[in-house]
């Protein structure tokens, strides 16, 4: 913790006082934290809160990413992943392809499958139900975290049923959790510029609320660094905070820096490291009721994600194999990390690695399993 005098110098002593007393910060407080020139001062506040919640633990998950298709009806300008039919980079996996991907990792000690895709123009709803059932049949112990609120709304529209019914049926087919993507920034102004066809911010919050009410917990994301203002980031955080007050269903918040390469947005430069760390820290400080904050190394790079563990993040995400969404937008990170490499990076950062499942329950491993090295594409061992 830095000297109290420093906070007096920056005029943040009242915010320090609120944090010490466990009181909620206002949007205006958040604006002052964004404006403070000293990113270390802001980071140290977030670290204090993070340590109070999680001590020196830093979580990670051994998971597999499956992107079932990048065909998408939405055409969001920030996206380098979505394609229209006929595009040479378009792909769609069959049910068998999906199951083969799971089979290919059957020897790996995975606890979670993370599966998302575009808003596919024609795939029937039954396809997704079968995919969930198929994965659960192969490996009943796996948790499936799949489909953003945007996909849920799309399925409902295509199938002509309510989003509640979609969620109920997916849950019955084996869905454990929603990953929280598609939130972008809730501001209608920003969405009308960036992704006019996509589900609205209100719609995202409604579907997430429905999921929570059905007992399906979710994560929540924020894509920042494109056209939004700092105020709009803070309003996004505040909306999530209010939802969480109502439902308590949010597990982890994931701030994602926008990657402009190969997207429809050419006039924006990528976020800088200090901006990423500051956003991470402000997120931790604002979201006083969300237990976990993720440093998603795929978007941040492993190096910055490690530093982010000091700026409010307590989760390093996972081993991730074959990530496509960030990498198609020019993310410079590795394709995958082994468990031993993840643990090393966490430990060398000064934290204690804790393997978790998608609900952040600690995974106990006996004997050989603990030292298992995942051999995967892109691994440098």
């Amino acid at each position, binding site marked *: *913790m*830095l*000297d109290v005098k*420093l906070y007096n110098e920056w005029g943040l002593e009242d915010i320090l006082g609120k944090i010490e007393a466990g009181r909620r910060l206002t949007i205006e407080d958040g604006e002052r934290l964004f404006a403070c*020139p*000293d*990113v*270390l001062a802001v*980071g*140290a506040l977030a*670290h204090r809160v993070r340590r109070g919640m999680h001590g020196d633990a830093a979580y990670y998950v051994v998971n597999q990413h499956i992107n079932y298709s990048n065909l998408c009806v939405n055409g969001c300008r920030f996206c380098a992943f979505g394609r229209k039919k006929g595009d040479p980079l378009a792909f769609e996996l069959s049910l068998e392809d999906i199951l083969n991907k799971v089979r290919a990792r059957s020897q790996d000690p995975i606890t979670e499958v993370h599966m998302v895709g575009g808003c596919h123009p024609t795939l029937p709803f039954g396809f997704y139900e079968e995919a969930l059932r198929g994965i659960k049949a192969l490996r009943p112990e796996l948790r499936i975290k799949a489909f953003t609120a945007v996909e849920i709304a799309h399925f409902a529209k295509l199938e002509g049923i309510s989003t509640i019914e979609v969620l109920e049926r997916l849950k019955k087919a084996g869905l454990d959790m929603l990953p929280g993507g598609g939130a972008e920034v809730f501001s209608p102004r920003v969405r009308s510029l960036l992704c006019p066809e996509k589900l609205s911010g209100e719609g995202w919050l409604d579907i997430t609320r429905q999921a929570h009410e059905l007992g399906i917990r979710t994560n929540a994301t924020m894509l920042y660094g494109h056209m939004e203002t700092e105020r709009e980031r803070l309003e996004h955080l505040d909306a999530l905070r209010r939802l969480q007050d109502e439902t308590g269903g949010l597990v982890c918040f994931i701030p994602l820096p926008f990657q402009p390469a190969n997207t429809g947005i050419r006039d924006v*430069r990528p976020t*800088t*490291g*200090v*901006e*990423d*760390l500051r956003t991470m820290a402000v997120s931790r400080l604002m979201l006083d009721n969300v237990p976990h904050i993720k440093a998603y190394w795929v978007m*941040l*790079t492993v*190096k*910055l994600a*490690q*530093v982010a563990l*000091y700026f409010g993040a307590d989760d390093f995400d996972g081993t991730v194999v074959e990530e496509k969404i960030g990498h198609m937008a020019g993310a*410079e990170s590795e394709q995958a990390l082994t468990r031993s*490499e993840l643990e*090393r*990076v966490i430990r*060398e*950062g*000064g934290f204690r690695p804790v393997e978790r499942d998608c609900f952040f329950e600690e995974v106990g491993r006996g004997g050989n399993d603990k030292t298992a090295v995942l051999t995967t594409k892109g691994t*440098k061992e």
Partner: protein
Amino acid sequence: MMEAERILRKAARGERLGMDEAATLYAEADFFSLGQAAHSVRLGKHPDPVVTYVVDRNINYSNICVCGCRFCAFFRAPDQEGSYVLTREELTRKIEETLELGGTQILMQGGHHPTLPLSFYEDILRFIKDRFPIHIHAFSPPEIVHFAGLGGLDVGTVIARLRAAGLDSIPGGGAEILVDSVRKAVSPNKCSAAQWLEVMEEAHRQGMHTTATMMFGHEEEPHHRLEHLMALRELQDRTGGFTAFIPWAFQPANTAIRRPPETAVSYLRLLAVSRLVLDNFDNVQASWVTMGPKVAQLALRFGANDFGSTMIEENVVAAAGVHFRLSVWEIRRIIESAGFKPRQRTMAYQLVEDSYRDNP
């Protein structure tokens, strides 16, 4: 932790740290307090919120090297496929491009070529100086020791002859870790720690400026890093000839050393400790080439006041599989976004009229 806080306050007052104190800080100091202390010492030396950078190009005149250092992915044996010595035409083109891009200097280094005589290097220097108004920052101490050995000359003569031919300053490369037990393990055929320091002392004595580097994260122990800093500080006390200290992390891909790369947090801690220990160095450089632009930007809050070079060309780290690329505009944007004013400088840390002032 209490002891670390006491030492940090001492360092922040500008008092010199001993070896044990440095070791305590390095091992125990709180991450934020360490960064804060390093930054306050940096602000003491450079009160203006300016971060400098240099526009230059790394020109590797040859990759032929008989040293065979285990950490190197760049060198080739004399007859090996891919070995080269640059032609005058290639050299000319590279320098012309550098000047067109607003460059003020070239950093020119190569391997330990088994046969080329000292006159070859003198000729290159004269060739460049006859044609181009550019600062030549060239030949790290191991190369100079190698030239001396090959020609049966002493180091002082080699430096004087190179200087007469146009050499302006000497880069601090090849320092690796200035502890002989480590050097024996990772670069057994390269000059000793004492020889490296001797070249720098002699260059300083002849009125030349040099930089100093440290390549860490291979087979050394943490205390070797601190011994390295102490050796540099001791020489700087006597000569004052070092303009800057540049620590960078070993990149293991394609080398003969099997270990994972140093992490960002370790890098930032070492950078901050370097700033606190090297109380007689004005400038400390962040390494975006090895750490990436995001971590290098945060390094500006952990003691660094310089963003290094734009690296119009870089081959050695790239050979180890690390390819970060930044334009001058990008470097300026990163510096500004961290809350500092970017200024172009020369090797001697003189500010120059910025060739890139107004963003496009």
